[in-house]
């Protein structure tokens, strides 16, 4: 535990990423441009020859970094790697002219060239991206410096830059996902909070498995999480600093508290408090502890999520007789129902771009992950299974993670990701069962 925590701290803090522009005189107009909205019929082929190790100590990490970059790009479904076995020309010098004809011959449309050096625990990674068919660099070369331990984050940073230049969208690979790791039989599941990279790597645990934990959520600065714990004997919202593992709760909220989320400025927490007969949404000011009731009435009002500008809250309520999605002011007051399709709607989450709401829909005994505009129009269901639940947005608003539970006595949850186009559904590898994912923002 202690070791893992320290490792996590090393990953998150010790890395001092210092991007430096290389060869700033390169100015060009890229012709390779991928529209993530249209949905790619054919993934764009790219090549990432193993980054050049500029000293002996850098060899192993140079290979690892190259593989993580390729893996990040492939995971989007937008790109396809031309394997090293097909490469005609090797790359032995970061500054040597690129043999475009050799890359063109194997149909590599994007080429990523990089070099890695290590010195006294410090790692320096530089890379350049080329549009092979235009025979031109795409953007400036960039150099990242950090600790050797932080190599994976640097790889994600490189992949984010490549993704961003090729798609025009912000990246999302240099991020964390906090989730509930599950073991044991269905009737007595053991649950622990854990945090990992977007691809399931670098996992570390934040709690033991002695109490049920649910629905962790990152703070806007990615340093704290809110979650629900049964440790006190009742479900209670807890705030944890993920670096120190220090916890605090919100005192006696006179009932069960759950479904927490931070406001976008990190000053407030919204959550549900239930006395059993009634479940309402409250806001708690983190500095003063002042509590404001935002909904009232006998309905179940839960799963609140702020708009990114902090002015509105989307939530679910059964005030109409079944679970539906509503939007209200961040100060409470009258709420407007936005879900009107067949079935029940829950777990709404506002997208980081502000334009969409992701949700869980239960219809005809099946569960779906879907998205709609914030006025409820353009509903689109992205998945369907026995039990799909709890979407969370990638930092750039292009991908959703959620959990899918299989039916039956041996049924168990795993985390999945899907593009908002509905394409590229894939399982995120975790060492045990996993549920309740929540994506961080891009790390700083």
């Amino acid at each position, binding site marked *: 535990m202690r070791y893992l925590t320290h490792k996590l701290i090393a990953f998150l803090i010790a890395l001092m990423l210092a991007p430096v522009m290389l060869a700033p005189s390169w100015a060009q107009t890229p012709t390779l441009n991928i529209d993530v909205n249209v949905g790619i019929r054919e993934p764009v082929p790219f090549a990432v020859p193993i980054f050049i190790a500029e000293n002996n100590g850098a060899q192993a990490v140079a290979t690892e970094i190259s593989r993580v970059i390729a893996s990040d790009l492939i995971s989007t479904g937008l790109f396809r790697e031309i394997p090293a076995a097909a490469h005609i020309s090797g790359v032995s010098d970061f500054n040597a002219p690129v043999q475009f004809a050799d890359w063109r011959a194997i149909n590599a449309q994007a080429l990523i060239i990089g070099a890695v050096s290590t010195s006294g625990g410090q790692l320096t990674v530089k890379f350049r991206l080329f549009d092979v068919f235009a025979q031109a660099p795409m953007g400036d070369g960039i150099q990242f410096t950090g600790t050797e331990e932080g190599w994976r984050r640097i790889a994600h940073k490189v992949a984010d830059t490549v993704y961003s230049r090729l798609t025009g969208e912000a990246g999302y690979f240099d991020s964390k996902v906090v989730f509930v790791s599950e073991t044991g*039989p*269905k*009737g*007595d*599941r053991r649950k622990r909070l854990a945090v990992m990279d977007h691809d399931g790597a670098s996992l570390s645990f934040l709690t033991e498995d002695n109490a*049920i934990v*649910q*629905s962790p959520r990152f703070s806007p600065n990615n340093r704290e999480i809110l979650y629900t714990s*049964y440790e006190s*004997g*009742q*479900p209670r919202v807890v705030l944890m600093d993920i670096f120190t593992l220090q916890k605090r709760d919100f005192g006696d909220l006179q009932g*069960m508290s*759950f*479904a927490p989320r931070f406001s976008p400025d990190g000053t407030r927490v919204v959550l*549900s408090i*239930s*006395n*059993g*007969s009634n*479940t309402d949404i409250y806001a708690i000011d983190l500095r003063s502890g002042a509590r404001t009731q935002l909904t009232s009435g006998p309905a*179940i009002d*839960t*799963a609140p999520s702020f708009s990114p500008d902090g002015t509105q809250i989307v939530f*679910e309520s*059964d005030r109409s007789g*079944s*679970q539906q999605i509503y939007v209200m002011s961040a100060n409470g007051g009258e709420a407007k129902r936005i879900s009107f399709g067949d079935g029940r709607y*829950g*777990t709404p989450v506002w997208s980081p771009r502000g334009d969409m709401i992701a949700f*869980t829909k*239960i219809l005809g*005994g099946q569960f779906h992950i879907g998205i709609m505009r914030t006025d409820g129009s353009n509903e689109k269901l992205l998945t369907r299974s*026995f*039990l799909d*639940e*709890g979407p969370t947005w990638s930092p750039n608003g292009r991908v959703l993670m959620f959990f899918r*539970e299989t*039916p*039956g*006595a041996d*049924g168990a949850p795993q985390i999945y990701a899907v593009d908002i186009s509905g394409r590229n559904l894939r399982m995120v590898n975790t060492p045990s069962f996993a549920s*309740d994912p929540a994506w961080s923002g891009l790390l700083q």
Partner: protein
Amino acid sequence: MRQLSKAAALAALLITAACSNTGGLFGGNGDGTDVNGLNGGPIDESSIAYFQQTIGDTVLFQVDQHTLTPEAIAILNQQAAWLNANPTATVLIEGHADEQGTRDYNTALGGRRANAVSAYLVSQGVADNRIQIISYGKERPLAVCSSETCWSQNRRAVTIVTSGPGV
């Protein structure tokens, strides 16, 4: 809390096991209708085993409902009578939901179910300071298949005696 309820359940199991052994060895009446105590005599009506086995500690609910059914009320009438006869006993009522719902909603729904039981017991004269409630939502299914056979057993509220006679 969880530990307490487990301990209670374990104690009940031990008592039940002892009962059937006693009945078998010493020739109980064999029709299965009597619950016998450790000595082969009638079980102590103030015991937790009596509360759990004879009265029944669990009531079931319809899909997405917290309304008490006539069957549930019949059980709760006896639970209330037992609690009124054993005024030192306190209870924890656990509300549960089946897996066919989202997590937060099911926590709230389990709360409604526990509250429905609590409110009914209070209406039958049990002081509300003797009752605590908790919701486990869909976290702790009793039956683990994914069909109505199991779901109907999981939509439940369980009254657990946490202090008083035999605890």
